[in-house]
Structures are given as structure tokens and as C-alpha cells.
């Protein structure tokens, strides 16, 4: 997009009644969405990997969280100053940064030295950091008072659910590499349960936001029949929820193959990304003036 077009669009947005948020979705803003997606998946996978004591999952989680950190840096306007983000008093971004800073080194150390008292300490620190990463994203959005669609206590729960689901999806993806030592049917059941929970949470979130205020309702409209409808229906609902849940339900009759589980995992991850993408893109700022002719 040319500089002139960007300028014209800024002017048009400033004068419009309904201003879509563009900072966290367009241009380098997309890196933030990818970063949020990866940090949730990686942190969730670390929690599952620690619970199942599965080395390949732990390694994959470290790589994914490190990639999430790189994506966050790619988004920042001044990435060289990233170390300043430590004002944890009231900022969820700072808490997320502390979570990642805590988890990554502790996770690497635990992966290298898993035994003894040091191993227990590294595990505890890494799990604490991962737990912070799971909850921070939703709270970053929920603290955004200018975007009523995000400014809800339901969103952190939804994003935490998606992070858990993404983590489990990574476990299922890594499982063929890990040699199938894990109990597949149990994991498939958990995956189905979390997917259904995410679907219920998403429906609940949209139902609540539709009733909240005009700006939030406008965002819901954008999501269900506006400019974000395609990624929402195809990515978030179709690929991310309907198909994985259908396969999961089919798996109740008998154990799913490793390939089917990997497919469910891959689709879940795609859906996880599009959930974050669609919710971010549907965000509209509080209207300053009532609608009229500009």
C-alpha cells in the first residue's frame, strides 16, 4: 500500500463513526497475532509435556515459544527496547513478557537437566512462566478499553481454553515423532472435550458481546456477516471446530488412527490461529460521535 493511500485511510478512519482497529492486525500487526497464537500453543504444550513427561513435546514447546518471542519482537516499533517491558504492576503485556522470560530459560535448563532438586526448580519456574503465558493474551485484549468487543472478562477464559487446546494439538502432532509412547485414546478424548469447551466458550462470548453495547455488537456483526465473516466461518468454525469435533465424535466409537489424530491436531491449530485473527480483526473502537453524514 502506498504512503498516500495509508495517509488517506488514516484520515478516513479518524472521521468515520466506526473505526476498525488496524494496529494489531494489519501490516506488522499480523506478527502480533502470530506471536499470540504461537505463545499460547507453546505454553499449553509445555504444560502438557511436563504432565506427560514427554521429551519431544517439551522440545517442540520450547521452539514454538521462542518463535513466539521472535514474532512479538517483529511486531514492536522499537524491538531493541524490549527489555524495558517489565512494568508488571498493571500491564498484562509486561506480565506476558515476564512469563516468557521466566519460561524459556527455565524450560531449556529443565530439558537439559531434568533430574534432582535443580530439575524440580526449573520445572516449577517453567510451568509458572507457561501458566502466565496461557492467561496473559486474553487479559491484554480485555484491558483494551477502547475496543469494547475485547473489553470483556470472558475473553481471557476463551483464549486460555484455546491455548490449552493448541498445546494438546502440538502434543498430538509430535506424537508420531515421539514413537507413540503416549496413550492416544485418552488424549483424543481430552482434545474432543477441550474443542467442545472452546466452541461453547466462543458461542457464549459472542452472545454476551452482542448484548454489551453498540460497538461490541457492531464487531459481532463484522464477525458473523461482515468483512471478517470468511475467516471466521471457514477458519475458526469450519476448520477449527466443526471438522475436529466431528472426527473426535467419530473416534468415540473406536480409537482413531495416529494420522487422524494428527489431522485433528493440525486443523485445531489452524482454527486456533483464525480464532485470534478473526477476533482481532473484528475489533472496532468506541464511536466518538453518533452516526451521521461525515
Amino acid at each position: 500500500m502506498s504512503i498516500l493511500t495509508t495517509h488517506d485511510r488514516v484520515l478516513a478512519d479518524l472521521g468515520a463513526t466506526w473505526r476498525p482497529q488496524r494496529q494489531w492486525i494489519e501490516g506488522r500487526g499480523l506478527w502480533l497475532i502470530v506471536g499470540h497464537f504461537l505463545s499460547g500453543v507453546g505454553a499449553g504444550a509445555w504444560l502438557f509435556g511436563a504432565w506427560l513427561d514427554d521429551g519431544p513435546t517439551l522440545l517442540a514447546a520450547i521452539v514454538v515459544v521462542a518463535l513466539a518471542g521472535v514474532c512479538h519482537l517483529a511486531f514492536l516499533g522499537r524491538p531493541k527496547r524490549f527489555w524495558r517491558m517489565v512494568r508488571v504492576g498493571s500491564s498484562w503485556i509486561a506480565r506476558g513478557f515476564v512469563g516468557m522470560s521466566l519460561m524459556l530459560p527455565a524450560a531449556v535448563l529443565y530439558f537439559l537437566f531434568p533430574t534432582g532438586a535443580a530439575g524440580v526448580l526449573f520445572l516449577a519456574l517453567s510451568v509458572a512462566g507457561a501458566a502466565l503465558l496461557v492467561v496473559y493474551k486474553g487479559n491484554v485484549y480485555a484491558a483494551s478499553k477502547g475496543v469494547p468487543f475485547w473489553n470483556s472478562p470472558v475473553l481471557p477464559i476463551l483464549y486460555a481454553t484455546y491455548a490449552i487446546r493448541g498445546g494438546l494439538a502440538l502434543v498430538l502432532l509430535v506424537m508420531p515423532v515421539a514413537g507413540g509412547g503416549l496413550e492416544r485414546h485418552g488424549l483424543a478424548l481430552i482434545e474432543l472435550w477441550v474443542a467442545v469447551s472452546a466452541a461453547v466458550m466462543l458461542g457464549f462470548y459472542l452472545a454476551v458481546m452482542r448484548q454489551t453495547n453498540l460497538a461490541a455488537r457492531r464487531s459481532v456483526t463484522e464477525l458473523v456477516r461482515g468483512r471478517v465473516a470468511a475467516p471466521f466461518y471457514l477458519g475458526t468454525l469450519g476448520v477449527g471446530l466443526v471438522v475436529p469435533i466431528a472426527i473426535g465424535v467419530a473416534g468415540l466409537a473406536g480409537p482413531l488412527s495416529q494420522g487422524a489424530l494428527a489431522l485433528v491436531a493440525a486443523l485445531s491449530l489452524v482454527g486456533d490461529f483464525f480464532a485470534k485473527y478473526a477476533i482481532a480483526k473484528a475489533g472496532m473502537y468506541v464511536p466518538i460521535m453518533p452516526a451521521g453524514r461525515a
Partner: protein
Amino acid sequence: MRYGMVIDLKRCVGCYGCQLSCKAEHGTPPGVFFARVVKREFGTFPNTRLTFLPLLCFHCGDAPCVDVCPTGASHYREGGVVDIDADRCVGCRACMQACPYGARSYNDEQRAYYPGQGLTPYEAARYSEQNVGVVMKCDFCIDRVRAGLEPACVANCAARARTFGDLDDPKSEVSHLIRLRGGEQLQPEQGTDPSVYYLPPA
């Protein structure tokens, strides 16, 4: 001491003088407005009404932009002025998402008003004062206020629609106008306690 501003919507004629004087004072790049005027036409011909709403940072007493800033770049200065320390800002733009009034701008790249022709000498001189990759906003012209002057938008308002002063002083002109004319904050339901009050148009 709490600096505040009163904007008389009955006097505002939508001349954009505040917007232009602010750009001249701060040398802001294209697409960045610390002060701006939103215009709306309501009704149907012949019963129509044109409304102007001058906007700027409201320097909220309970500013959500300060709460979400991960570095402390957004902070309160003397007189309750909400300001950004450009040297601390990482450009995460959380403050822009937190501000219910759209008062903040992100300076993502060095832009020129005449694309393809490079910066004019004026732009080259003024933009050197600006940081790229950070968020920018109105600071109530705190340097002018310290020097005993009014903010640029107040000093250059042709209709004298703007008044600047101390909200904590019951004898100040701003306090008097708010009491006398029933000054109201924009969207008080946001709970941010803005320092800018509007006097009703009629």
C-alpha cells in the same frame, strides 16, 4: 493543580484552526493529529444540523493508557498531564487500544506530505524532533504552559471556544465555565475522568 480544558461547542465554528496550529506547534507528520475536529451532519434537508466536535487527548485522571503501558512510557506529569516518554516507548500500541477516545497516533514511518518528492526543508527540520516506531499524542503543550503561554490550540482558536486552566482551582475560568454552563466530559461512562469538558452547543 490539575490542568484542564473547556471547549464551548456553541462557539466552535469548525474552522480547524486548532488542528492546524497544533500541527504547526508540534510538527507532527502526515496522519498524526494531536488535535482534530470531527464533523457530522444530522437530519434531512431542509432540517439539517452541522455539528463539530474538537478532539484531543483528554488527559484522564484515571487513564487506561497509563495502566496498560508495559514500560512506563505513558505516565502522568505535573498538573495531571498524561504524556509519553518517547525514549521508553517500545511501540506495542497497547495504549492506542486502551484509549476510548482515539487520542493516540502511531508514527510507523517517516512520511512526507508530498510523496515522491522527499521531505521539504520544513519537514526535515520538524520531523527530526519526532521518533519513528513510537506512539505520539497531545501533551497539553506543557512546554508552552511552563513558559506562561496557553496551549497552541487555545491560543489560536479564532472563536475563543477553548479555555485552559486549573480544574482544581474553584476560582479559575475553567471551573467557573463548567459550573455556570454545565460542562460535561465526553463519555463519562468510560470511568476515565477526562480533564477536558464540553459546554453544550445550545
